[in-house]
């Protein structure tokens, strides 16, 4: 086959991407107090500022615990987008101030990926952020991006945690305050550090029956004034204990059993052991991040054009070692629960299968497979959560690992008998929120991109059957399948 090369590969990405729809000096992701303040500052400095916040997210996503661990305890009010939008404006007067300052505000708009040229990619027109609302996705360029994505709930597995009514503290706070849409009445809080104490007090103030706090350590952990308030409110503290299981019915949780054997009636178990800085975007863009036990987990290091504010930048450092605290909880919970406790809800991976590095149930497990385990895998090298998730599917589900990734890392550290910090962070990948194909799709893509599109590399000689080489068929093959290439 005679090929006449032109010096151009028409199937390469070069120059075919769509331009961003707009360019902003500053994009702020997350319209909580820190994000709004940052947006106002930037606008007051004369910059063109876009402020986006994914809330209100759809009821379907809330049902999948995105972005927070709602545990199915939101009322039907959360299905009404107009009401939710109104609730956000009512709870955040600073949004009006931001708009008055010239900030462009988009609620119900998710930032699902940040992209920039660097190692492995040089084809982007500029650094961009991918956005999506209920109708479509699009990209905008930016000079600086400020991540104010807050913190997300750390969830913890125990028998019965995979039912409605087990939820996180940040989710409960959001339902109680911003949306006034919490569907529970009797709440048991797991944990006793500041997050747990504040959540318990907030719930109590909102008329919720807080039936107690459970603390794995011998004494409550948070600030003494909060502990005093909780005690004064008559909320029981169950110290030196863990939750052993939750029982429930068709509507979810009905009671919790503690490791002491005590059974406590409740319709909601609020896991308030810790918040994790929401660094999905930073990690998915290969941004620099580092583990900081006092600030709640991995936090962005900060770069020239990427910064973080609020809980996303790390929880306030009070000297408390969040990682040690979580590891203590994980050890305690594991010690009182059976190995068949589900760790990954989406993919129904049990702790035994995770530690056994076993495939999902729809695959057979021949004898050699059964003989494999994390222990044998560790003979080959250090534990890597990405490898474990590919083999076990833990973290591969529609919640994108929100509910189990931190637990998987902790369990790997415990099983490998290594410090938590030696376990690599499992990769976050764009889109960092689940996005329907029809929303993510670039329906009006550039003609140049379509023209460059081939199923694979578009190399004419790659797919000619070997039997056809040096026969007339090879040219026919090229004519039919590779029009316009290398002629």
């Amino acid at each position: 086959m005679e090929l006449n090369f032109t010096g151009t590969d028409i199937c390469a990405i070069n120059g075919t991407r769509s331009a961003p729809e707009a360019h902003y000096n500053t994009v702020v992701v997350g319209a909580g107090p820190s994000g709004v303040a940052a947006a106002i500052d930037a606008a007051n400095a004369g910059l063109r500022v876009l402020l986006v916040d994914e809330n209100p997210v759809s009821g379907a996503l809330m049902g999948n615990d995105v972005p927070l661990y709602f545990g199915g305890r939101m009322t039907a009010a959360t299905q009404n987008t107009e009401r939710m939008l109104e609730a956000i404006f009512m709870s955040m007067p600073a949004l009006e101030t931001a708009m008055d300052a010239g900030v462009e505000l988009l609620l119900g708009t998710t930032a699902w990926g940040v992209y920039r040229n660097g190692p492995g990619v040089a084809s982007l027109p500029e650094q961009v952020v991918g956005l999506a609302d209920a109708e479509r996705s699009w990209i905008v360029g930016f000079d600086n991006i400020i991540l104010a994505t807050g913190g997300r709930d750390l969830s913890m597995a125990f028998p019965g945690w995979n039912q409605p009514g087990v939820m996180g503290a940040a989710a409960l706070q959001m339902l109680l305050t911003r949306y006034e849409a919490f569907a529970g009445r009797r709440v048991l809080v797991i944990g006793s550090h500041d997050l747990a104490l504040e959540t318990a007090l907030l719930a109590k103030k909102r008329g919720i029956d807080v039936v107690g706090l459970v603390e794995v350590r011998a004494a409550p952990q948070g600030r003494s004034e909060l502990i005093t308030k909780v005690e004064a409110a008559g909320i029981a503290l169950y110290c030196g204990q863990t939750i052993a299981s939750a029982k429930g019915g068709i509507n979810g949780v009905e009671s919790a059993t503690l490791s002491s054997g005590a059974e406590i009636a409740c319709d909601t178990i609020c896991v308030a052991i810790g918040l994790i800085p929401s660094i999905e975007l930073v990690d998915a863009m290969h941004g620099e991040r580092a583990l900081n036990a006092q600030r709640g987990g991995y936090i962005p290091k900060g770069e020239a054009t990427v910064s973080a504010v609020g809980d996303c930048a790390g929880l306030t450092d009070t000297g408390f070692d969040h990682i040690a605290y979580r590891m203590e909880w994980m050890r305690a919970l594991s010690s009182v629960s059976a190995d068949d406790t589900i760790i990954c809800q989406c993919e129904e991976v049990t702790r035994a299968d995770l530690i056994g590095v076993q495939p999902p149930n729809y695959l057979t497990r021949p004898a050699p497979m059964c003989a494999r385990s994390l222990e044998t895998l560790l003979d080959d090298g250090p534990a890597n959560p990405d490898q474990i998730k590919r083999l076990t599917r833990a973290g591969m589900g529609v919640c994108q690992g929100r509910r189990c990734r931190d637990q998987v890392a902790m369990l790997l550290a415990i099983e490998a008998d290594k410090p938590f910090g030696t376990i690599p962070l499992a990769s976050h990948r764009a889109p960092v929120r689940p996005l329907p194909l029809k929303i993510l799709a670039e329906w009006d893509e550039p003609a140049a991109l379509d023209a460059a599109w081939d199923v694979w590399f578009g190399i004419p000689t790659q797919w000619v059957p070997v039997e056809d080489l040096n026969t007339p068929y090879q040219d026919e093959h090229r004519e039919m399948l590779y029009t316009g290439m290398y002629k």
Partner: protein
Amino acid sequence: MSGSEVVIVGGGVTGLSAGWWLARSGVKVTVLDKFIVGWEASGRNGGGASHYASPLFDEEQRLWPQMDELLGYPTEHQKGRILIAMTERQWEQYRFIAERHKRLNHPVELLDVKQVQEAVPLAGDNCFGGVHYKFGGHANPQRSVQAYAWALQDLGGKIIQHSPVTGFETAGGKVTAVKTANATYGCDSVVVAAGPQIPQLMAQLGVNVPLAAARAEMIITEPAPMMPLGGVDGHKIYGRQTMRGNLAYGGGPHEWLDMDATGPAARPSTPLARNLAKRLAELLPKAAHLNVIRSWAGVIENSPDGRPIIDRLTSPDNVVVASMSSVGFGLSPASGHAIRDLVMDGKCSFADIDILKLSRFDNLESDWREKRGWMPIT
């Protein structure tokens, strides 16, 4: 040569399959990998196993249905593929391909829209028809790579991870040892199956292997109900429904990259996920509501003609070089067999693979990348 040592450079699917085949023949094998087995393109591809253009095709087809049993570990291999045409032009092209298959005695059947929808319920009535390949198939790349690795270990082979190869020791026209930062591995033979790192490694032996690396991307959705036929291609995208139900798809423009001796510095995905999503929503309109939950990229190498290089060198004469030129996963059961044959017997026992010899590029112009436009963006 039973009992002698073969060192394999690269724990991708090709190196691992070669190691497994050699171990099956009683050879003591050590696989060296810079990081973790299957971490690069071997674990990031579409899982297709239908490479009818290759001289290794028949062996690929013979072996895949047996691989779970042979390896002792699940690969998620599923048989059959379908090519769905979404435009008049695609329908013309796919029927052309079907005719080629018929002539080569590969079993194919043309499907009308109704038949397409029976096999692929997520397809719409907007398609023009389909070509059902009653051969080929797909498997789970990550699970398969690990299966090769474990099967190799079960036969006594060694896998040394986190150990990039830094060079070779040679004597008397042979490679006598392979070096990493921490150790030197003596050997009787070497297989260099290090993907995009092959050119830099082979240059140390004075051998020019023309390869260019590029980045390609994929997306995956949340699970959909299982379809009768999960290996669905067409509309210029490729992919599969996993046995869990997810739709994993790739295709589209690639980006050529500089070659780095230590491997890709990063494998970033890009907003191309949106264009993959568009085509997948068009190919399978009844899946358009499904959430995309991840995207990723991989770095793969291609030879100047896009065909693999599997060759035992004349000097040093105990080195087999193997680059599968971006079609490595599916062909891995057969490529490993061919490499085993070259190492042990000097000749492939089951196919004529002369077309894959490195010497076909002996007269390649030095600016072959520039001529093809296979250059990194500057």
